[in-house]
């Protein structure tokens, strides 16, 4: 009787041991998977706010960030479109993720939407059409937008004051299209200097680009990502 008892206890012990090992094995594999997933998780860049006057390249820039075909039919943007969790791959050794991107029209009636977006976004990008920067009326509107954006920041309750980055588009159609080191020369332009000076301590980076040129747009995105993570 005692022998049967011993064998039963032995069997129970073996069963418990194997169940325990299975449980440990299962939990370990779960932990490893979680660790690997964390390691491979794209790095979060935060939410982007993008705006500018009509035909400044907002939708094209957003299309580039989303990996869309930007060479199709161009259309005026009529409504606000919120995109979440955009994966950026192939620009660096690791992947990045933009938490939120909002595409909306550059019309005057969207200014309040823009100011609200600036308030809650991590990175702010104002788009300027370099082809039109010398036009008096266009420059006046851009300066008005920047002025309102800067003022809105200064009365914001947020402790973090976002810098306003400027993306200069249509470089290939501007007066700087043939220049090699267009970046530095651009910043000496009187109209652009007026815009940048208006920003005061809100001034961020300046990115000139031809969004329809692959190397130019890739360079732009790399610079943007680099500046976001540093």
């Amino acid at each position, binding site marked *: 009787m005692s022998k049967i008892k011993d064998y039963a206890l032995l069997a129970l012990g073996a069963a418990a041991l194997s169940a325990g090992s299975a449980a440990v094995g299962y939990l370990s594999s779960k932990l490893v998977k979680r660790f690997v997933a964390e390691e491979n998780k794209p790095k979060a860049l935060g939410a982007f706010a993008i705006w500018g*006057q*009509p*035909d400044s390249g907002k939708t094209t820039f957003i299309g580039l960030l989303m990996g*869309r075909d930007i060479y199709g*039919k*161009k*259309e*005026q943007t*009529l*409504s*606000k*479109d*919120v995109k979440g969790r955009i994966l950026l791959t192939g620009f660096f050794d690791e992947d990045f993720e933009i938490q939120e991107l909002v595409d909306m*029209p*550059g*019309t*005057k*009636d*969207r200014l*309040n*939407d823009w100011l609200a977006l600036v308030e809650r976004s991590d990175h702010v990008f104002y788009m300027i059409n370099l082809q039109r920067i010398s036009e008096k*009326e266009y420059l006046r*509107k851009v300066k008005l937008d920047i002025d309102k954006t800067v003022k809105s920041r200064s009365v914001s309750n947020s402790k973090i004051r976002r810098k306003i980055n400027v993306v200069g588009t249509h470089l290939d159609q501007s007066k700087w299209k043939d220049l090699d080191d267009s970046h530095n020369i651009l910043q000496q332009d009187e109209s652009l200097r007026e815009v940048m000076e208006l920003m005061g301590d809100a001034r961020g980076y300046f990115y000139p680009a031809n969004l329809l040129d692959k190397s130019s747009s890739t360079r732009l995105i790399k610079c943007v990502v680099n500046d976001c993570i540093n």
Partner: protein
Amino acid sequence: MIVLIDSNKPVYLYAQELDNSGNSICLSSSVSGEYQDVSASSSQRDEILCFLDQVQRSGRRWWISSQEMECITTFYGDCLVKLNPVTRDCVGRVAPIVVLFNVRSAFRSIVGRVLLDSEKFTSRVCSSEQRAQIFRLQKMLNFHWLVIYFHIIFFSRKRLND
């Protein structure tokens, strides 16, 4: 902010200016052939834009849509009709016109007229196919709102938003 256009609200017409000046045209109409301008700084304009965004974001493509004219509806009966006229903006982009209304509204009877009049207010020209689609839409909207509503329920599909 959820905005519903109820049966008392007029039909709205919205489009951006072709000169890319940042201005936009926004008119309301509750009497056939008569239009009132909706100021850019008014709260009514904000409501209209909110409605536009909402329907674009979550609306369903109605069967009556075609290549010439897109109709997006919600189960509340809110409707957005988007036309891409032949006319392009000053840099060659497609320059759509949008008309907003609710199918329960008595003013749905003037939607066709508003769409046709949109050409003169927005300086755009629609194609003959688009004008034919407008007449087809108005025929549908002339039915009792319950008929239209059930049609929307059975003949609208979720849109593939990329």
